[in-house]
């Protein structure tokens, strides 16, 4: 388990028996279910609002929404300890919210305002927080994989006991530098979890059409990196697999691959009508596998929450998102003098 001196960032329940038969589904406590519900709902509502602001012309450029994939980042957040890092590509809003970054700062960055996390100079794809151990936010497909490997390298160099969770998609999994990184990570036993968020489409190209070997969890096989396929729509499965992988890394055994099988409901970016898949396919995922609905149902079935309780949570989250959207529209644009700052130290 986690290094004793650190505390879990998610909830603090001590789990008595971890031994479960496959598939590993961690039974959640009431607190864990409620935590997961809140976190995932925040991402969902935030992204819906971002989509709305984009449609109003308030967000420019590219904007990639995380709707449908919320369980991946929230399950991992619940498994990590203080100081563990996250790094991902450009579909990054959910990761930032999960890493406890202020929704106001994220939304204001989307609208390019001075109160944005990068003072309005990064945009949707490029946000960072050293304080919260979030290392971007990268616009070049696959580049974050080498960078995340370097963050893991720094953890090992400093012997700080932390692990870098390095996220990339099924599309990025065909980039050459991913395998260069796998090789070095295993060779040097770096504490890195490679989280492949397989949402089945790299932009408009399905995994089957882009990948000669579609079991992405085994992409590390030739480097001796263990990997497993995880139901990325079930936050409990994500957390269980993540704990196991984190423990592996913290024990000094090197990197670990988690293929999170997930789905994005929206197009690749706001400008993608997603005509490469059927409406039925999307609808089926939404009705049968939605990560938030799954938690909601368990909360109600277990009588851990009433409809009213959940409505209250929803209301609270909508208020937080509305506040973020309000800030993102009223906060001024960066001062012209910012054009020439932050180029060199």
């Amino acid at each position, binding site marked *: 388990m986690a290094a004793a001196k650190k505390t879990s960032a998610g909830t603090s329940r001590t789990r008595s028996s971890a031994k479960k038969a496959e598939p590993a589904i961690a039974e959640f406590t009431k607190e864990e279910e409620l935590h997961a519900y809140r976190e995932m709902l925040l991402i969902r509502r935030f992204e819906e609002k971002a989509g709305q602001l984009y449609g109003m012309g308030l967000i420019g450029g590219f904007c990639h929404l995380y709707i449908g994939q919320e369980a991946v980042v929230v399950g991992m957040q619940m498994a990590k300890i203080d100081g563990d*890092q996250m*790094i991902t590509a450009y579909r990054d809003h959910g990761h930032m919210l999960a890493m406890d970054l202020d929704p106001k700062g994220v939304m204001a960055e989307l609208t390019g305002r001075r109160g*944005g*996390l*990068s*003072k*309005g*100079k*990064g945009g949707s794809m*490029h*946000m*960072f*927080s*050293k304080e919260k151990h979030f*290392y*971007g*936010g*990268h*616009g*070049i497909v696959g*580049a974050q*994989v*080498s*960078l*995340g*490997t*370097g*963050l*893991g*390298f*720094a*953890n090992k*160099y*400093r012997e700080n006991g932390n692990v870098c969770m390095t996220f990339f998609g099924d599309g990025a999994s065909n980039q*050459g*530098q991913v395998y*260069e*990184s796998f*090789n*070095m990570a295993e*060779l040097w036993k770096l504490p890195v979890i490679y989280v492949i968020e397989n949402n089945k489409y790299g932009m408009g190209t399905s995994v089957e059409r882009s990948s000669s070997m579609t079991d992405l969890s085994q992409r590390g096989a030739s480097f001796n990196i263990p990997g497993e396929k995880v139901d990325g729509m079930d936050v409990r499965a994500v957390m269980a697999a993540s704990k196991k992988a984190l423990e592996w890394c913290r024990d000094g055994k090197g990197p670990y691959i988690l293929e999170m099988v997930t789905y994005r409901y929206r197009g690749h970016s706001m400008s993608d009508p997603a005509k490469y898949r059927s409406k039925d396919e999307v609808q089926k995922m939404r009705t049968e596998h939605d990560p938030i609905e799954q938690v909601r149902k368990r909360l109600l079935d277990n009588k851990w929450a009433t409809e009213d309780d959940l409505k209250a949570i929803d209301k609270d989250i909508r208020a937080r998102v509305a506040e973020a959207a309000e800030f993102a529209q009223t906060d001024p644009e960066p001062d012209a003098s910012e054009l020439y*700052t*932050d*180029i*060199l*130290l």
Partner: protein
Amino acid sequence: MPIDILMPALSPTMEEGKLAKWLKAEGDTVSAGDVIAEIETDKATMEVEAVDEGTLGKILVAEGTDNVKVNEKIAILLGEGEDASAADAAASAPAAAAPAPAAEAAQAPAPAAPVPAAPVAAEPVEDPEIPAGTAMKSSTVREALRDAMAEEMRRDGDVFVMGEEVAEYQGAYKITQGLLDEFGAKRVIDTPITEHGFAGLGVGAAMAGLKPIVEFMTFNFAMQAIDQIINSAAKTLYMSGGQMGAPMVFRGPNGAAARVGAQHSQDYASWYAHVPGLKVIQPYSAADAKGLLKAAIRDPNPVIFLENEILYGHSFEIPDMDDFVLPIGKAKIERGGTDVTLVSWGIGMTYTMKAAEELAGMGISAEVVNLRTIRPLDIDTVLASVRKTGRVVTVEEAFPMCSVSSEIAFQVQEKAFDYLDAPILRVTGKDVPMPYAANLEKLALPSVAEVIDAVKAVTYTA
């Protein structure tokens, strides 16, 4: 007929070496493939194998001899039935002359008619970075670079060096020699051949606050990694609103070595100098190399440090100081003068300094500005010189199109137009991929004669 055994070249750039040891004695029988001697250069120790068989008739260069030129006769091999007298005769004959490179004739136009002026002396210059009275010592560029890294690694535990063959092999060009012994495998790291990957890994480690020195075996291979250098290292500070950047150095030999062809002979200074968020340094002397590499390692920004393989073995005087650090972004007047400003950097300085010396003999006093740093460019030092001389020639080995010379010419005309008495000329590598043939390679590179011709053109003395 006795066979001459000649001092072999162990690398494309080797000019001389030490005959460290004879493994065969006079009178020994030698078969083809036998190791007969060991030779050392500043880079490596290598064994010399016999190519022919026979008896070692006479050893002409004793073991332990330094500075034995490539192709110098080092021993005589006797064939069957030949005796020592044949060896003596062979030893006194001149060494077979190396075939004259055709390029010698084609290389440069004959010098123009001599300028009937008295020779001029160089104006005295002082280096403001070196305190008066500092003792100087001789150092190669190679030693200076190694010492710079070692000193900074002693000073800061977050500094580490990684790259291909930097540790156990002691560096492909022996720049990291001895570092593994002193700092161990945790801080001197052999990477797989995986430029894109280890460059990205280095940037990630830097984003976490470590201070990597990423060595590229040559910058030609860094094109595999250029996305990480530009998109990740150079831009993160800006994109994060100043929250995190990449305090690191990318270093290695850049530009042409000797006879290695088009893919191993490119100068990337202008490529990197184009990018905001990077600093770009191109040292010439050992002092430049040491003082600026130390500064680069301490700098909180990503620094591109462009070395040159030919310069590695060159010796210079270097201040004998505990902590010699030069400011990044400050050019040096390497030679004072009044008639023309020569602006150069890196290996371009070798042509420039020789040209300045020859020009002095012709009565033309050239001031030489050694840029040292390409970005940020110390245009003020260039302009101050131009305001004095009114004439500028730039000298570099890179391609001419969109070169650093282009940028200097632009800025000089923008900021000192009224001081110019002649068009700005540039002497560069030719606008061709580097050819392999010796004569063509020589033609593709700048020459001292081209610098002199350019100076004559701008001083209207041709």
